[in-house]
């Protein structure tokens, strides 16, 4: 899958003034990419990620998925795109409190009619991520690192081609944060593309490219 953005701009109003959360950003992501998107809080990283998955429409510019304009698709098709092609790890605690870790992971699989055994697949992912012992735990019983691993398992359940992670290690200790990035690297080696928003400059070097966001502007550089 090739994901391209052309001249994306998104502005917001804060009080009496307008400001550009994302200003004229363009990029392309190919299969197997591992991009770290760094920048300070409020630099526009989350806005860019949300536009990239079709959740937030830009004021101008376009997102192309394999050459097709994401925002010319119907809302239903954009939902399918997120469900099938993208694995998304939102910022903060993003698991549903009334579901076990395993069922949280299985949920995206069942948001669309598809054949297969989500239970077996979720268990394989748990095993792969070293969290098999957490299957029946509820989110409130999990540590920050465990929550991220479960969120990663959930992002992987539909075998997406691209995973977008928004500050996946922001509230983790350095060792746990490293472990999470290790997992990303391992999965990337298996062919999954990553676009990871972070403000941890040290860890960002584990990707093969670093993009910087500064006041809504996207600056790309080699990793």
């Amino acid at each position, binding site marked *: 899958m090739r994901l391209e953005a052309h001249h994306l701009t998104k502005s917001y109003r804060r009080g009496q003034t307008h400001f550009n959360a994302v200003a004229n950003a363009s990029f392309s992501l190919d299969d197997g990419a591992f991009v770290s998107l760094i920048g300070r809080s409020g630099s526009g990283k989350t806005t860019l990620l949300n536009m990239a998955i079709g959740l*937030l429409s830009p004021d101008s510019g376009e997102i192309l998925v394999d050459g097709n304009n994401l925002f010319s698709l119907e809302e239903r098709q954009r*939902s399918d795109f997120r469900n*099938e092609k993208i694995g998304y790890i939102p910022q903060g605690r993003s698991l*549903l*409190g*009334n579901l076990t870790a395993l069922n949280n992971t299985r949920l995206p699989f069942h*948001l669309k009619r598809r054949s297969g055994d989500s239970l077996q697949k979720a268990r394989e992912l748990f095993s792969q991520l070293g969290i098999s012992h957490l299957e029946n735990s509820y989110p409130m019983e999990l540590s920050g690192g465990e929550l991220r691993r479960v969120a990663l398992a959930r992002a992987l359940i539909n075998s997406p081609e691209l995973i977008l992670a928004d500050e996946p290690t922001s509230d983790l200790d350095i060792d746990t944060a490293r472990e999470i990035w290790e997992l990303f690297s391992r999965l990337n080696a298996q062919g999954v593309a990553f676009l990871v928003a972070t403000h941890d400059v040290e860890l960002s070097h584990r990707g093969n490219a670093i993009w910087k966001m500064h006041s809504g502007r996207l600056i790309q550089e080699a990793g």
Partner: protein
Amino acid sequence: MADKVFTPHRLALQNLRRKPYRNLGLAALVGIFSAVLFGGSILNGQLSKGLESLSARLGADVLIVPYGYERVATAALLRGEPSTYYMRKEVLDSIRAVPGVAALTPQFFLASLIDSCCSEHVQIIGFDPESDFLLRPWMQNIITRLGDDEIVVGSKIITSVGDRLFFFGKTYRVAAKMAPTGMGLDTSVFMPLETLYALIRGNPYLPKLLENPHFLQKLDPPEAYISSVAVKVDPGTSPKAVGNAIMLAHAVEYNLDLVIAENIVAETARRLHGLAVSVYWVAAGIWLLAILVISLVFSVSASERKQEMSLYRLLGAQRSWVAGLLRWEAFSICLGGSLAGILVAFCVIFPFSTLIFDGLQLPHLGISGGSIAGYALLTLALSGLSGPLACANTVWSLTRFDVYSSLREAE
């Protein structure tokens, strides 16, 4: 763990478990509505059937009773309330001579005290087998074949054909049981006038057992007295006009009063209508209240659930899926509450129906299982509908908000 698919239905049930007390409260409200609607419909159905039976099978057009006993006679006819009142029998010939009278038949009432066969007072009704047209529709040809010691019992008297019942020191064989009438006749015991007169004549127990023994002193001899005269008027003649003619000619002489049968039906229909309207207004009120409260609770919880809904959307759930989830939650609350309400109403109405109808003092007849099922389905349908109606506003708002913004707010 079984591989259960995450349908909105399953997930809705899991979500409801998060706030069990709140959801049980909402379900209880729907349950009250269902109990009122289902229970009220069953009662109304039974009363309507009683009214149909009353108007279709009340054989007399006019009932002549002693002066001052109009209400008592109506109560005896509709509810089988034991009553004792008498007038001289020669009134029969006088009434027969009034123009417009097509047929007439006398009755003699004797109220027993609590008898071994019955849990309450029993009205013993003596009738004339030759001229009777009041009881015949429920008794077919049995009344002309009754022996001296044989009686017929109403459908609600707990006994079987062939059993022997004991009244005022004399034993009688139950020759037949009447078909249900929905009226007071169901709790009465019937015997030919001659059998009843024989029971009264020189009976040593009567003065001790009769509710109003002073009547006995007047009944000398008993065969010279009757309690009421049922009159059928000529076809095309107004019962009211014939009744007035009887009153005009003989009211003073015999101290008479009259009951117009169609007035009983009209009065019963009016009370029944009043009851039905009250039940349905109350049910409608509770239904609206339930919808309003559920809607309010869902709206209030909408803001705290925005992040959850955003997550579904983020993970690729379509708006219709999220809407379905919310509708299932509301529907499940309503369905559960409704089933419980129907069950409670069922458990209250059927075991206590005698008590309830005694309180209502209206004729009634049992309704079919099909009708009961129909009322249950109607109640379930209305309750089920209230779920999606109640959450419509929340569904609309929670499927159209800005997912990105609500996720940012939650961070």
